[in-house]
């Protein structure tokens, strides 16, 4: 499936669109709908009068209050996942005009500036659809378990401060720690494929975000005690060698997480680890 990337060429284009946006226009919101797992998909279009500053969420809210398609058919409100609406929770991710991104920060003016323009909403294709635009991203969180994305502390008691850390190291970790597990990187990755069978989640590709999280915790003074566990997992099936170096992930990441840089760093750590295992046998 051809995907256009939000960060590739269109930022200026979208800004230009904003400038030529027509006040008081009506646009067509075209939604790929599905009643549930295993059910066929269909398209429905809605006429939406555009208010100033309207985003895709406001469009969907308008449809919920007026669930009538552009050809006059009464239907149901569109089902979608959402949370903070500030682009920090990651819930409202969907494919908009072919690109995976958060719908809360997606302004209609940037995508459909003229009267009658169409904006197309689809569920992410790499995760099973629950209903309409809502997909099941449980596999994404499972991959965080695979790489043991935590610091193994001695319990939540007061045991003094954590390890000291340089501001430079903090900056490396902070950039990765802004990852909100939205799934855009997986949607864009040609090596990451839909896998509805839960039993295969521990051997299929973990995806770019989990590899970056392994790097985050390997860079922490105490988190690194699990470094070998993480690297052993990423050396196995579905690990870092599944990356095909397409570099799509970093282009679509809404938070600018250094994904390819992290995959490179983990690749090097894995290599060193495999030498150690070969020569030391552990």
């Amino acid at each position: 499936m051809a995907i256009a990337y939000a960060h590739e060429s269109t930022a200026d284009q979208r800004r230009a669109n904003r400038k030529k946006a027509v006040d008081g226009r009506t646009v067509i919101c075209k939604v790929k709908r599905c009643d549930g797992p295993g059910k066929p998909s269909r398209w429905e279009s809605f006429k939406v009068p555009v208010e100033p500053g309207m985003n895709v969420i406001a469009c969907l809210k308008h449809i919920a209050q007026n669930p009538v398609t552009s050809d006059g058919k009464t239907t149901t409100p569109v089902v979608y996942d959402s949370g903070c609406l500030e682009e920090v929770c990651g819930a409202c991710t969907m494919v908009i005009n072919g690109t995976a991104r958060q719908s809360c920060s997606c302004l209609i003016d940037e995508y459909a500036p003229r009267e009658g323009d169409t904006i197309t909403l689809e569920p992410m294709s790499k995760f099973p659809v629950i209903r309409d635009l809502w997909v099941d991203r449980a596999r994404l969180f499972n991959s965080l378990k695979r790489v043991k994305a935590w610091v193994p502390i001695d319990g939540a008691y007061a045991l003094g401060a954590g390890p000291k850390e340089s501001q430079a190291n903090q900056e490396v970790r902070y950039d990765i720690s802004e990852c909100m597990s939205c799934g855009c990187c997986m949607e864009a990755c040609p090596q990451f494929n839909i896998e509805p069978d839960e039993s295969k989640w521990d051997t299929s590709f973990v995806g770019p975000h989990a590899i970056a999280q392994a790097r985050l915790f390997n860079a922490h003074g105490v988190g690194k005690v699990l470094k070998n566990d993480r690297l052993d997992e990423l050396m196995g099936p579905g690990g870092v060698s599944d990356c095909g170096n397409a570099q799509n992930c970093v282009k679509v990441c809404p938070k600018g997480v250094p994904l390819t840089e992290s995959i490179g760093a983990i690749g090097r750590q894995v290599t060193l680890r495999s030498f150690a295992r070969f020569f030391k046998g552990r």
Partner: protein
Amino acid sequence: MSQERVIVVGGGLAGLAASVRIAEAGVPVDLFSMVPVKRSHSVCAQGGINACNEVARQQGYSEYQHFDETLYGGDYLADQNPVLEMTNWAPKIIDLLDRMGVPFNRTPEQNRDLRLFGGSLFKRTHFAGATTGQQLLYALDEQTRRYEAEGRITKYEFWEFLWPITVGEGEDKRCVGIVAQDMRTMQIRSFRAGAVVMATGGCGLIFGKSTNSVICTGGAASRCMQNGAWYANGEMIQVHPTAIPGADKLRLMSESARGEGGRVWVPRKQGDTRKPTDIPEPERLYFLEEKYPDYGNLVPRDIASREIFDICVNQDMGVAGQNQVYLDLSHMDPDYLTRKLGGILEIYEKFVGDDPRHTPMRIFPGVHYSMGGMWTTYTPGSYDPGGRHGMHNPGDVTPVDTEIGRGMQLGAHNNMMTNITGLYAFGEVNFAFHGATRLGANALLSCIFDGLFSGVSVVNYVRDGAPKGEPTDGLDQGVFDRAAAQEQAKADRLIGSGVGDSDPTDPTHNPYAIGHELGVEMTAASTVVKTGPRLEQCLTKLDELTQRYQGVKLSDSGMWTNQTLSYARAVGDMLILARVIAEGGLLRKESRGSHYRTDYPDRDDPNFMKTTIGRCHPDGSTSIEFIPVRADLVEPRARTYGRKDSDSKSKSKQEAVTAS
């Protein structure tokens, strides 16, 4: 006897801290959340988390000063003992979060960096970039995932809490589980537990558009209230003066925009349709500068909110006839702005599509936080000053040390327990700690403190308390089946009310339209500026909406992933909670903290240094009473923030600039 389980409802900071604390004590936890817990509303907190630290301590600051500031900031409406315990714990909590791997900003010497925040002259706010709440939540999410991988915590994500299951009546009433619904399959079922912890956050959606996430309806708290839990200080709602109005929600604009020279204005001509940049200087009304020549745009938060509200709602002078005013930086050097305010200007541009360096921003006050919430009690700790202590100044010897248990007794069964035995409330959903208004960067602290400190109480309660005498395992299954059947019947009634032949866009019985009107009315009547007559009018409107809600019709009658059902059900619960909030505001005939009545502009301690208790009766009616605040530790002072002092100007300016 098999092991009692604990149910935690809500996976934000409070819920996750509680889950971790309870699970590590060896008690299995069932964690319920409407969203994957990593997506909880706590991610939205930006500024930081307050705690005394070694640098501030050597400048004269102390945990006790933090305690004193929190009470003063809250206008003395908070019960005092829990606040003392919380502020004493704050440094321990920062250390713990540090060990969990939160990327706190660092100094050159690799220590944790600090920033200045509103309500204090000391740097006592720890921060991780501009996303502190997100970073803290992730740290707790990671620990939760670790315990989940070890089988100590079981997550029920995309499950909605519907009802607390109770046995007994009156003072013997005890919570023994919950009814919940899978938001995907729509299955409704009951769950048993030795104790239930509500950690379900705020209720911003009652006000329509707010800075809250879409799940913050207050529905869970309302459902507990409908089963007899008290709801306290509901009228205490914090409104942030500068939020960005969006078609879908309000997003915070940091107060540093005013601090760096932003000017607030509206066109002098009502309904002026010209672009702001086309309106010449003499035709602009800089209403803050005109009314407050000394402070200008840097008036304190509450005044700024009131004046902006007055211009738009009472004088109908808002930009383009809407509830918005200009916050203008466009007269300043764009390079300077990029350097000083780059990040927040980008947020504005991302969500609004205008560049604030060249076009004035449009802002309006936004409902932000609920100080009120479910009423909770506690066992006082060992500190007894033998009479209220007077004002505490920096450098003074503190009257009490910071040993555990000075404010509240560690592990007492009833810490942060509601009036229903075995039903706890942690975090924003309870009423403790913040009184009549909350200090910036104290929210994250109170949520985590509740989980860690009162989590111990939950553990002790399920081991030694009521469940030991009568284990939940032994209770008749009928209790649980009846509760589940009651919720199933409610859901069936709503689903069965489908639109049929009627027009789905008719707003009379459309749940989205009713919810919208509720928000508009509550924002207009019960936020920044309140009056008796307007609140009475609001209650009449709530009657009308409740009437219309009786005939609510759903445009989706499907039995799979029906979000309309979830929302429509919440609207009914929001209407009941809204009534308690408005009635409390009407009966509290004074002004205190965030509660400002133009007809009663002064604080009235003899009559209203009291906790508002809202109750819902079995027939759905509500009532309000007032009980004394437990204030044995500190003597209340007037909350002036130095406005009467000669140095008031510089101090207020500093507070306005550093708060966000």
